[in-house]
């Protein structure tokens, strides 16, 4: 997992609970805690820290991870505005993840283990995302999608009928544009 994800997690935790909370969390997880954005670290390190955050906040893991995803979108968008600026709406952006964003990431960083993300539009207001990853971070992906929806001012509802956590080899996430 790239260091930038750890940096963003640290930002989120320190925003909510100050330096103290982050210190607590990395002590609990048992790691040194200095993360460089361009380096690569063990996935397990991230999972341990997230686990410690969930415990510390005393909230359900799913909602913490989803919130992290939403927060992460905002951070990534401000670090790399070019990707959001080049897409006019949510669906085009989602479609650009695989063809544009991940392509650029692969150029910059050699050891990446990016998930496979394939989008297909179904009708006017629905897009289905096929998500495959050994890490099975579909909840994080959902959070990111909600974050993107916020950025593009497009209210959505995500259905998650097919899921790797339920034994499938991939996740199907249906993004429905709601009109509230």
């Amino acid at each position, binding site marked *: 997992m790239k260091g930038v994800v750890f940096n963003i997690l640290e930002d989120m935790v320190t925003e909510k609970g100050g*330096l103290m909370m982050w210190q607590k969390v990395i002590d609990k997880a048992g790691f040194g805690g200095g993360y*460089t*954005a*361009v380096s690569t670290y063990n996935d397990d390190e991230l999972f341990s820290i997230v686990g410690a955050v969930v415990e510390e906040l005393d909230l359900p893991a799913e909602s913490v991870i989803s919130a992290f995803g939403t927060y992460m979108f905002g951070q990534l968008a401000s670090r790399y505005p070019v990707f959001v600026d080049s897409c006019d709406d949510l669906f085009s952006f989602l479609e650009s993840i695989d063809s544009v964003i991940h392509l650029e990431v692969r*150029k*910059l*960083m050699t050891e990446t283990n990016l998930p496979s993300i394939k989008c297909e539009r179904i009708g006017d207001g629905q897009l289905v995302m096929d998500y495959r990853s050994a890490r099975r971070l579909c909840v994080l992906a959902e959070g990111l999608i909600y974050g993107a929806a916020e950025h593009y001012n497009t209210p959505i509802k995500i259905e998650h009928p097919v899921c790797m956590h339920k034994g499938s080899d991939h996740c199907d996430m249906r993004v429905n544009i709601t009109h509230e």
Partner: protein
Amino acid sequence: MSDEAELYRKAYEREREARKAAEQIVENHTRELYLQNQKLEASLKQLKEQQRVLVQNEKLAMLGTLAAGIAHEINNPMAFVHANLELLSDYLEPYQKLVALQREALKLPHGQQEAVAGKIAKLVADADLGFFEEELPELMEDTRDGLQRVLEIVANLRSFARAHTQERQPEDLVAGLQSTLKLLNSQFRTEVVLQQDLQPLPLVHCNLSELNQVFLNLLVNAGHAVEGSKGATISIATSAADDKVIIKIVDNGIGMSDEVKEQIFVPFFTTKPVGKGTGMGMSIAYGIVVDHGGEIEVESTEGEGTTFTITLPING
């Protein structure tokens, strides 16, 4: 917050900003490196293609040099093939008459064959068919040999001129040298003594077409070096040692000065007058040998001669 903590907080903020800036620099550099790499790969591809064209052009230029000699090589056997066939066609008519007479004789009853026998004897004498009968087997043999020689020369030529692929496989370098020598038969003046000590070699993993071009180049140069020398000798020797093979081409021609020797592998360098030779032969030869993981060395003494030693790994 205490004063000290405040100091630390400020320091922490500064460090964070500095680190973020450093990370940005790293990312920018990485992107630049990636783009540079793309450009370099494209350049490399283009250079390799240009090199391929250069090598092919050099090969064709060399063929031009050899053309006169090869034409002579082909002309010689064709001359006597032609002469033999002329002779054969001269004797065609008497032979047809002979066959006709025999057919006539076989139709006649036994007693009357005497008359035809006389005609046959006269025909044989007049047309000197007896002589022809004796000579015919040798004539056929010579004609077949001559045509075989031409076929081989043409085959060697085609194989040499063909734009070769980049593939490498186990090849017999001695066979390669021999086919190259056939292309050179008329290149050397008749007085030039060609010594061959071609020990059998293990198969070498290589592009034989490319190596033949190297051998041809060196041999043609050797031929030029001995032009006008008395007792001109060019010798070729092959040997194997450990996992390498060694090919030595020696001439006792005019040799090279130290200055010339230093430059022979430099592209476009030539001691020949303008219009003769591209100056690329040796540099291409050098490139091919090194590409195969081998070495090419030259020893030379002005007025005495030159030795080229090519060493190639068996599993290049």
